[in-house]
């Protein structure tokens, strides 16, 4: 009982720390418009449609289902959805306490979780990225792997890993990591492979059948196989992307930078020592393999976006469970403590301010304000074309008139070329949508390469009779409503 209380106390401390960090950006409505695209696409479920059927966003379908559930739980309150993400980060950090360690209480067991929180403290990692959700499934599979004695445990692992790939396709690297773990650790390699693949295939087959029943299997294959293959063919150098991130982290906090370098070095050190004994008892090979899988996740994405590093920043601290000496632990604690001092100094004030103003935070979101003012002027059947701040579609619960939800996707030729060849969009998609004479156009300009600004302005200002409504302070929501 005493041990449980100790655990609870430390969990509470971790929770408070997560809140102190994550709340620092909750006064911003949009940190990354990817999340807005997830939210808008997720509403397709509410209309009885599947993702990709009428609306396209470049992520697998389970992600949208999860966001749909978040929307339902929060009753479309964006602030609550952000807080749900904070809870996910909290749970992931707790999982680092419970995984790879024995059940007895030790202060040291909390350090990996705290390190993960510190790594994700920068605003780069605050939005509800799909990487957090894929980690939930991968971590669940790790729990089953470590704690279950069932002879079908790899079947469950396969199911969970399949679910993670339905959140973010890059999670396929964790299937590879389990293939390697089975090869190293298990005696009945073939049987376990069969279980793993059966579980994995079953989920994907079920998803495929669902799309087939809805008559949109072709769209599913296009979105789930053809486009991701095309999308990863664009390249950003792995090492320069890592270098850019490390430099940015050093600029943000030197102790965090030091901690990252120490963890990377320790991982490489353990990898070399693994060559002597692969079959160690303390999860060394599992941790090292998953760290490399996470690095591969960042590598195959080839985009250099920081949020692709979230799995790596989760698994790197796990290797702290492999440290033996008190001196080493002391050094790590020193870095973690000073990282938190730096991070809290930067973020805690704003977080406390946001917590104090919790009631008014959502009311001040600019798109929400715009929605509150125009909702009575818009009919359910109105055609809406959004080119900039697509969150308006979410509040209005309306689909975009274009098949593409996320405006940035117009600039990815590897995506638009596939959509064009499948007749999902036209070559001049933006002009086509403007010529459809939408009732509402959201966006003051079009930040893409598919349309000339003059053409856009001519259509909006001369040919149509639009009323311009500007919202507001930050000038980032502009809506044209047909008179």
């Amino acid at each position: 009982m005493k041990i449980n209380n100790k655990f609870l106390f430390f969990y509470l401390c971790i929770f408070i720390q997560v809140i102190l960090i994550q709340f620092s950006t909750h006064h911003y409505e949009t940190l990354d418009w990817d999340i807005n695209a997830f939210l808008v696409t997720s509403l397709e479920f509410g209309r009885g449609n599947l993702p990709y059927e009428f609306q396209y966003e470049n992520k697998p379908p389970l992600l949208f289902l999860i966001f749909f559930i978040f929307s339902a739980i929060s009753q479309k309150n964006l602030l609550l959805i952000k807080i749900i993400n904070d809870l996910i980060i909290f749970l992931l950090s707790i999982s680092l306490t419970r995984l790879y360690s024995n059940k007895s209480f030790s202060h040291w067991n909390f350090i990996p979780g705290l390190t993960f929180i510190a790594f994700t403290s920068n605003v780069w990692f605050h939005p509800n990225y799909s990487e957090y959700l894929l980690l939930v499934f991968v971590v669940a599979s790790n729990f089953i792997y470590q704690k279950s004695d069932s002879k079908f445990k790899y079947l469950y692992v396969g199911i969970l890993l399949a679910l993670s790939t339905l959140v973010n396709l890059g999670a396929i690297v964790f299937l590879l990591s389990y293939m390697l773990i089975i090869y190293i650790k298990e005696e009945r390699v073939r049987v376990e492979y069969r279980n793993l693949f059966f579980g994995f295939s079953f989920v994907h087959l079920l998803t495929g059948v669902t799309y087939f029943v809805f008559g949109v299997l072709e769209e599913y294959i296009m979105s789930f196989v053809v486009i991701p293959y095309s999308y990863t063919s664009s390249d950003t150098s792995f090492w320069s992307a890592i270098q850019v991130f490390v430099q940015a982290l050093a600029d943000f906090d030197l102790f965090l930078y030091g901690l990252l370098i120490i963890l990377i070095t320790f991982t490489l050190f353990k990898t070399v020592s693994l060559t002597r004994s692969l079959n160690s008892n303390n999860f060394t090979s599992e941790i090292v393999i998953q760290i490399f899988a996470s690095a591969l996740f960042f590598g195959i994405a080839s985009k250099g976006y920081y949020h692709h590093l979230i799995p790596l920043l989760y698994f790197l601290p796990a290797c702290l469970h492999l440290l033996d000496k008190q001196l080493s632990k002391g050094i790590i604690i020193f870095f973690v403590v000073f990282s938190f001092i730096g991070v809290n100094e930067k973020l805690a004030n704003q977080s406390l301010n946001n917590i104090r103003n919790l009631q008014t935070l959502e009311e001040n979101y600019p798109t929400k304000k715009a929605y509150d003012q125009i909702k009575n002027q818009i009919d359910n059947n109105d055609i809406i074309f959004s080119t900039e701040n697509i969150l308006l579609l979410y509040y209005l619960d309306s689909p975009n008139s274009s098949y593409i939800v996320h405006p940035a996707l117009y600039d990815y030729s590897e995506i638009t070329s596939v959509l064009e060849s499948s007749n999902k969009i036209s070559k001049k998609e933006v002009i086509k949508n403007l010529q459809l004479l939408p009732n509402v156009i959201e966006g003051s300009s079009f930040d893409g390469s598919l349309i000339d600004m003059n053409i856009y302005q001519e259509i909006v200002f001369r040919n149509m009779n639009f009323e311009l409504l500007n919202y507001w302070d930050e000038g980032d929501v502009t809506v044209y409503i047909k008179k």
Partner: protein
Amino acid sequence: MLTVNTMKNSPKKTTENFLFYSSLLLVSSLATYNFSNYIYFYLNIENLDVDSLRNCSFMIFTPNLISYIANYEISSFVQDIYVIPEFKNIHCLGKISNIAYIDSNSITASIYTNSKFINLLIAVYNFSFIFLHYVKNLLNTKKFLFLLIQFNTVVFISYFNSLNISSFSFLIMSFVIIYLFKYEN
């Protein structure tokens, strides 16, 4: 006594000695060469010879560390230079590529840099010696640490303008690995 004699003449000892003295000599020569080029620059700062400039004969230690040379205030700019496959350009790293006199006591200088090459050099040197010391048991700890500290000091002083976050990361990694071999192995 016999054992000591055998050790002295063993191929391992010979390799060790060769490694230690050749590295020591090479890095010392590099430091001396760079320092002599700096002295040459210091003595001729008021009247720089274009040919010497073209031949990369003027070394400048980082103006971030030394901002005044012989009463001249130095403002510096970096200019990347290819060293692969133009290997002869290696000796131009850290040297002055161009100089302009602003007034009687201030000059601007462009300095040749190549971060990738310097990072590669740091990584290869440090990790090779770590491998040789901890895996192949070559060089005693004192000699090993002396070589590592000497090399990194020379590189960090001579090529400061070529350094970036990776250089510092490789340095930290090298010392973390040494710590890990000592305490966590």
